[in-house]
């Protein structure tokens, strides 16, 4: 009996110690992950003098919530950038999901000549990086007189290879019988797509929607190339311009950073479940 108890006890204690070590490791990494955010939030409340002081202070000596108002006053375009970011992200998200779902339907459920070649062509574009196409894309849009307009940002992003791939794979798994049933009821291809396939593809569409939104919200290089007027800028562009203008006012730059990050953070917390799933299937692209 005694040996049995001892045998049962030791592994249990070993297990507990191991669990504690694992948690300590995870918490340390969590602190490392969060500290830039925490320092930034505290920094956003400091005065311009204190933010540049050495050694840096952890908590602000005097709290300056007025920094948040100051930034909006100094940069009357800030609300505009916010709305630009929001509008562009929502538009790209809606169109990209719709167009990718349409293409996914054709690739997964319909028969037509050239299907495999077209699908391979779409997949091949995954290997073509932005730096190869950014210059000719700019020139093409310039020829269409679209540079420095919202469509210049929207158009190239409303059908993505990764999105089409995601939708095609997902729709392939929908049972054929459901479609048959719709056809027997007299539904055409468009009705079937709209009434049967789309409602069943909501999980994949949600994942794609989140990625499109996040990608557009954070995109910097492409808007930087095609948008020159400050009133058309998105938040990252405005923030980058803002930071070069106010190099020594890091506290204000941090306030702007917080304004830029919060909407995404809210979105992620609301849709956490879907994000984990979709990052796992697509690798976050």
């Amino acid at each position, binding site marked *: 009996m005694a040996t049995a108890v001892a045998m049962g006890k030791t592994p249990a204690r070993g297990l507990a110690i191991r669990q504690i070590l694992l948690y300590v490791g995870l918490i340390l990494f969590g602190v490392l992950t969060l500290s830039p955010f925490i320092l930034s939030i505290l920094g956003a409340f400091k005065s311009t003098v204190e933010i540049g002081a050495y050694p840096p202070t952890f908590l602000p000596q005097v709290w300056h919530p007025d920094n948040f108002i100051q930034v909006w006053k100094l940069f009357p375009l800030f609300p505009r950038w916010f709305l630009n970011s929001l509008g562009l992200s929502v538009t790209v998200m809606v169109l990209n999901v719709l167009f990718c779902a*349409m293409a996914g339907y054709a690739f997964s459920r319909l028969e037509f000549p050239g299907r495999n070649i077209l699908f391979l062509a779409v997949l091949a574009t995954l290997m073509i990086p932005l730096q190869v196409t950014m210059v*000719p894309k700019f020139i093409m849009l310039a020829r269409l007189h679209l540079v420095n307009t919202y469509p210049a940002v929207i158009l190239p992003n409303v059908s993505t290879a990764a999105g089409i791939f995601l939708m095609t794979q997902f729709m392939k798994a929908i049972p054929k019988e459901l479609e048959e049933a719709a056809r027997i009821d007299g539904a055409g291809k468009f009705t079937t797509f709209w009434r049967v396939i789309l409602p069943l593809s909501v999980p994949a569409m949600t994942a794609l929607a989140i990625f499109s939104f996040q990608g557009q919200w954070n995109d910097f290089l492409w808007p930087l190339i095609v948008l020159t007027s400050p009133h058309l800028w998105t938040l990252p562009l405005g923030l980058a311009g803002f930071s070069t203008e106010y190099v020594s006012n890091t506290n204000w730059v941090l306030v702007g950073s917080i304004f830029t990050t919060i909407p995404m953070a809210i979105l992620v917390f609301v849709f956490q479940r879907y994000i984990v799933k979709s990052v796992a299937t697509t690798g976050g692209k």
Partner: protein
Amino acid sequence: MAIDVRPKVGAQAKVPTGGGTRLKRPRPYREWLTSYVFLIPAIIVIGGFTFVAMGVALFLSFFKYDLFTLQWNDIHNYIKAVGNADFHKAMLNVVYYMLVVVTLQTILALTIALVLDRIMAGRGVFRTVYYLPAITSSVVMGLIFSWLFTPGGWVGTAVGGVFPGLRNFGWLLDPGTALPAIMTTTIWSTAATFMIVFVSGLQDIPAQLYEAARIDGAVGWRSLWNITLPLLRPTIFLVTVLGTIGTLQVFDQVYVMTNGGPLKSTLTPVFLIYTEAFRDYSVGLACAEAFILFLIIFTFTLIQRRFIDTTIEY
């Protein structure tokens, strides 16, 4: 509507009746047409902004073009690109950047995923916290880290605790440390995304395998080495490929944190192409460099793809 007359369609769905099938099936060319209608937006966007754009880039790479005048330049853009010291520097920088970032972020992501897989509770909380940097815009994170890396800033203070001489060191102002500082910023923000990929890869490994291995006496490190890692190979390769493609395109952090400096130590190909095309208006040269870069990335991806294809069979 005649079809509705047939009773209990479900019961005999598997038995096709000749006449009914002929009546119901639309003539194929109508389905073809429908298919193309569904594909129109994708064809216009991907065809236009990728394939046509590639053609335009190839065309322009043989010309001198400053956005106004177009002048035949033979293969001189390519000759200039190959001999361009800035291009060499940018390529070397990005390869260095890629090797360090992909290696470290993959190891870090895998380690955290393995730890997360072994704890009893609270996985979701940690995952959310770790994922926060991944959703932060690269501009924001570039600005935050520029501030953290300033002389006498938080990084200096932290490192200065151990090496007092480094307290006022300008991490982004020294050619030796500017790129590593950008690497740190990137790893901090991307490791989490790949961690989630690994976590789901780990969940796909059947529990029976661990069970069987334990009966055979393989536990702890041996089970990690002999079961987990080999079965995770496809995921590891996916993470490596995505990491490679992503790191070769680094731009935002460079633009915000160093502007390519100091002494071109953080110059990257995308930054170089951007400045040549949109600041110096050497569009032809930029296109030639973009094509050379594309061929390099393409080769890289093909090599890595071979590895993925061989591992799918497990």
